[in-house]
């Protein structure tokens, strides 16, 4: 499935300053693995050593927080947008 991943500004130092990355993946977790293959080191910022998402990183699929979906196992369809967004704001 071809999807677009939106990269937040703090991580663009890993992506040659690109904010949108096209890649092919069946799930959110797979999209992160693809991202790591293209830009080594980037997912170290996003995941704990045990693979869980870091506490202060949120991921959205077409605007919905993946914690309301199936987390990293959330399935992707063609044309979907995966957004990685820092969690600390507001209140």
């Amino acid at each position, binding site marked *: 499935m071809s999807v677009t991943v939106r990269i937040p500004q703090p991580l663009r130092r890993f992506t040659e300053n690109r904010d949108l990355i096209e890649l092919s993946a069946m799930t959110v977790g797979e999209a992160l693995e693809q991202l790591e293959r293209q830009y080594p080191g980037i997912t170290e910022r996003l995941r704990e050593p045990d693979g869980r998402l870091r*506490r202060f990183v*949120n991921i959205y699929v077409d605007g919905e*927080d993946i914690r309301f979906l199936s987390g990293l196992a959330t399935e992707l369809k063609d044309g979907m947008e995966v957004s990685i*967004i820092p969690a600390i*704001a507001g*209140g």
Partner: protein
Amino acid sequence: MAVTDDVTEVETRSYVTGLRCRVCRAEYPEQPLAICDDCFGPLEVEYDYDAVARVLSRELIASRPPTMWRYRELLPLTAPPRVGLETGYTPLVPAPRLGAALGLKNLYIKNDGVCHPTLSFKDRVVAVSLSKACEFGFDTVGCASTGNLANSVAANAARAGLRAYIFIPDALEHAKILGTQIYGARVIAVRGTYDDVNRLCSEIVYTWNWGLVNVNLRPFYSEGSKTVGFEIAEQLGWRAPDAIVVPMAGGSLLVKIQKAFAELQRLGLIPPARVRLFGAQAQGCNPIVAAVREERDEIRPVKPRTIAHSLAIGDPADGDFAARVIRESGGWAEDATDEEILAGIRLLAETEGMFTETAGGVTVAVARKLAAQGYLSPEETVVLAITGNGLKTMDALTASPLITISPKISDVERVLRDFSEGGSQP
């Protein structure tokens, strides 16, 4: 220096040493940045407490005007404040009649429903963050808001001559929308919840060079909340209460009130004592309460459904910190249904003559539960943090049918009989 008014004659010395990540402890110089580059953790302002201890005393604080700036050494400004000079030092009111209803003999209300200039505790965080925005040279500011913050950023930005963009969820109370637009702020309603607004604003700060108070200015902004705790301690005669009940949206206020008492203890301004912190949320948006009950730090976000719009944050940024502070302090957290919230608003109004907004109804309702469950005991000093004004959330209430009469004594006699009071004739 020509100006002699102490409000503006503020020492320019800063005690801020920089920013530090609360998770991985990475250090950063002072800048408009809220998130650690390494781990995305929140950044916190660091102070040189030894230097503060050398200058700050109860006497010095007491000699200053009654505003939040009397604790200026513990606020993160490097230049004199430029916004909200009159903000803070709201009344700490003994509440014996509410206390009798709850079974608490030493109950106090910290009433930020009368904070200057927009009648909520958000005036404190905005005073700090917009002063900081001026220091950093921003000419455009803004926020993601459930209403009270929108009011405060709009009003304070107007007075400071700053352009303001205010982002709100599209289903806010009328009074909070009007009370933002009136100041000339550019108000943008975002389809969705507050959490959607927050997410959008997290991206906006990387796109435009704006100072969003609770996004890129958040480390400075949140420090303003400490002044609620400083004032309570001073107003109690330089001691902390035994317990305090605090409404929770993002969870920051509760965490910062705890920090305020800890700082005063560290500086020797109040005696060491354990303050139990109790968090209050609406049942329709209770992710922090759920975490406390289930004894976990991890916050599971929820989709808010509550009349307490100002607390309707389903993914609270400081949720896990708040849950930990509550647990470590020996406190607890409870929630209130919409009916209990409305009953809480009426109870506070009828017993203490204070009209609070829905968030205050949550706090009163939760305090009632905590007292009934034995978490608060009758003899101890308990403070309820009332953070907003009821005139802003009147949509949530229904007025009783109005009794109308002709201007005749016989009509008055009739309605007095209806009120079953008989009227005490002279």
